[in-house]
């Protein structure tokens, strides 16, 4: 699987996702600095990692979303290349319009850093095919702004079109309809607040995140 990880100033999960991709697929991703204007050719996956790009200035992900490399990510997404944005990556993908809605401050105002119980809401996406329908999984969250917000029409459309990939099975951050992760209209862009790359080997306390990457790999192979 040929993949790329976008690196912004302030990204801090770029190496975690790189390790996860290498462990699962056997090949290391290209690390692409935000000033680049092109991505490597023939990618099977673009990953936008978690962290605190630009110190969360203005709004989380807002500055990163206007980086030169993001135009290339848009172009790749338009060609159908799978794109995954995790945590700050999810915030960046909403800020740049690849995914609808916005991520606001957690309703409890606390930074939430712990394991979160999730439900796989739709297994018919290229990101979730490694899971069973309605499967309960545990993946860590670590964020201050994960409260998913969209207007009622958008939420209805996301649910109606099966675009909610993951839901929280417990209160975490006040997200509308317990949304933890969504996919784009074309199905090839996923944004999620929980960190699957932090649950890929037994030493992490579980492997519930690993199957996301294994499912992607199986789709490519």
């Amino acid at each position, binding site marked *: 699987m040929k993949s790329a990880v976008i690196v912004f100033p302030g990204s801090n999960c770029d190496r975690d996702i790189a390790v996860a991709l290498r462990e699962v697929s056997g090949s290391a991703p290209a690390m692409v600095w935000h000033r680049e204007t092109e991505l490597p050719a023939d990618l099977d996956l673009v990953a936008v990692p978690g962290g605190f790009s630009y110190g969360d200035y*203005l709004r989380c992900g807002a500055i990163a979303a206007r980086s030169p490399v993001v135009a290339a990510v848009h172009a790749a997404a338009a060609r159908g290349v799978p794109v995954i944005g995790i945590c700050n990556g999810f915030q960046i993908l909403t800020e740049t319009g690849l995914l609808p809605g*916005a991520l*606001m*401050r957690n*309703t409890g*105002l606390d930074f939430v850093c712990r394991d979160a119980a999730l439900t796989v809401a739709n297994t018919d996406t290229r990101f979730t095919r490694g899971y069973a329908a309605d499967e309960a999984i545990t993946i860590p969250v670590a964020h201050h702004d994960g409260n998913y*917000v969209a207007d009622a029409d958008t939420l209805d459309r996301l649910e109606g079109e099966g675009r909610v990939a993951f839901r929280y099975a417990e209160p975490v951050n006040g997200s509308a309809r317990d949304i933890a992760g969504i996919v784009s209209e074309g199905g090839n862009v996923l944004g999620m607040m929980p960190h699957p790359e932090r649950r890929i080997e037994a030493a992490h306390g579980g492997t519930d995140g690993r199957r996301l990457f294994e499912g992607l790999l199986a789709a490519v192979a």
Partner: protein
Amino acid sequence: MKLRIIVTLKPGVLDPQGKAIEHALGSLGFAGIESVRAGKLFELDVADDTSDEAIDAMCRQLLANTVIEKYRVEKAA
């Protein structure tokens, strides 16, 4: 030309920070606080010939996230 751009949450968007501020004012003993909404203020110094269209584009493309926020521009001499 000096601009003040005020970005606030759209009506109906819940504002957890405003709510916390509201409660804190209540804790300080201020009575009659009915609602607090937090927002952002940007002060820009721009070329005098900057068009309204350009200012609006700055707001839409970066300063405000129009999914959840609205903005208004005040010009000072």
